[in-house]
């Protein structure tokens, strides 16, 4: 019997033969680690890029979005729990290999591919090969991830990635342990590594009432982002809706999200947005220098993009992103 240790994510699962990891999709078969979900997505959709959410990446474009079953975290409030917390043999999977994915995305009018819904880290090989092929054929790649990955595989993947939205779930290790079955530190490391590349990095923080909505903790998080990643990085505070194991909690009050946005701005963050909440002030992009409206949005729909070559048309300030 040969045991293997998976070194893809910080769980570092040690697997005896015929055992699968916490992610549900990697297993030890005769002493060799195998992926059950390569080219087998259970979700394939065309989405507006704003839905990821990516607000500073090709606004108004359509992005081909895929996911396989499984996840390496166990968020009690996961919105996609029906596929993220499912074994891949129980979901309805398509066969869509990387070489077929790119033409399919193109045929659907997309200029980029999002590896999303669950977490691309667990279908690493599939995402990696697809990213390489997409780049070769002039398409761009976006990861929507919790960032719970080891440094080596992350560094190997990033040259093939153009944008990422990282879900920073909270700013305490306790929250990560209790609510998500993970740790905070590896996620912060992922963010620091990503911020040093030329990809577009955006961060989402889903505010769960009574769990990660302490204004002091939100301030600490915003300060850390400003000091370690830069004030240009867009931050999305997203409204919680009852899901999965937290169905009895109420949705996040609008006032909590508005307070969070003000805290982020007071810490110097230039691009702060509110998600799952209609509020024109926090769904548009404004020039951080002169305040001019740059991108007008209504929900996931883009009404107008006023940027000229990535710059504010009034004061010519360069705006973070790919436009």
């Amino acid at each position, binding site marked *: *019997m*040969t*045991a*293997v*240790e*998976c*070194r*893809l994510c910080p*769980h570092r*699962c*040690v*697997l*005896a033969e*015929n*055992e*699968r*990891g*916490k992610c549900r999709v*990697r*297993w030890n*078969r005769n*002493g*060799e*680690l*195998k*992926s*059950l*979900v*390569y*080219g*087998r997505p259970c979700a394939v959709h065309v989405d507006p890029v704003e839905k990821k959410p990516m607000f500073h990446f090709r606004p108004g474009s359509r992005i081909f979005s895929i996911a396989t079953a499984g996840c390496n975290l166990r968020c009690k409030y996961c919105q996609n729990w029906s596929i993220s917390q499912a074994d*891949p*043999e129980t979901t309805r*999977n398509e*066969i869509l290999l990387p070489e077929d994915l790119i033409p399919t995305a193109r045929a659907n009018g997309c200029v980029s591919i999002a590896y999303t819904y669950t977490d691309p880290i667990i279908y*690493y*090989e*599939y995402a*990696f090969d697809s990213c390489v092929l997409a780049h070769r054929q002039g398409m761009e790649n976006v990861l929507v991830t919790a960032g719970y990955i*080891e440094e*080596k*595989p992350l560094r190997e993947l990033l040259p093939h990635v153009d944008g990422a939205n990282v879900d920073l779930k909270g700013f305490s290790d306790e929250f990560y*342990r209790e609510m998500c*079955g*993970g*740790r905070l530190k590896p996620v912060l490391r992922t963010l620091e590594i990503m911020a040093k590349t030329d990809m577009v990095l955006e961060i989402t923080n889903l505010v769960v009432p009574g769990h990660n909505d302490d204004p002091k903790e939100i301030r600490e998080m915003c300060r850390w982002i400003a000091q370690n990643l830069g004030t240009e990085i867009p931050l999305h505070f997203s409204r919680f809706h009852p899901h999965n194991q937290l169905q009895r909690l109420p949705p996040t009050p609008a006032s909590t999200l508005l307070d969070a946005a003000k805290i982020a701005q007071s810490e110097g963050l230039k691009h702060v947005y509110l998600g799952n909440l209609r509020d024109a002030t926090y769904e548009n992009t404004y020039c951080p220098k002169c305040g001019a409206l740059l991108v007008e949005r209504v929900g996931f729909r883009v009404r107008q993009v006023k940027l000229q070559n990535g710059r504010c048309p009034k004061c010519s300030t360069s705006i973070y992103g790919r436009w």
Partner: protein
Amino acid sequence: MTNALKSKKILRSNGLIVLMCLLVLLGMAASLWQQSRLETVERPAMRTVDVERIDREIGAGRLSDMPARHWIVIEEDAPK
């Protein structure tokens, strides 16, 4: 000192000892619970797959049998 007072005093001191024992036990239980909780997070219980079912799904094309990257062999004949 009357017998009633004596027994009251004994009861009180015994009660204190019992209370302290309970507190120690409670502390030990809390520590054990904390330890098991951490282990659950850091070393999640692995699950054995239904190999026959997985093979059937692979055969039908619904699952893949692709070699994964980023892993190492721990040791031959390693007791789990």
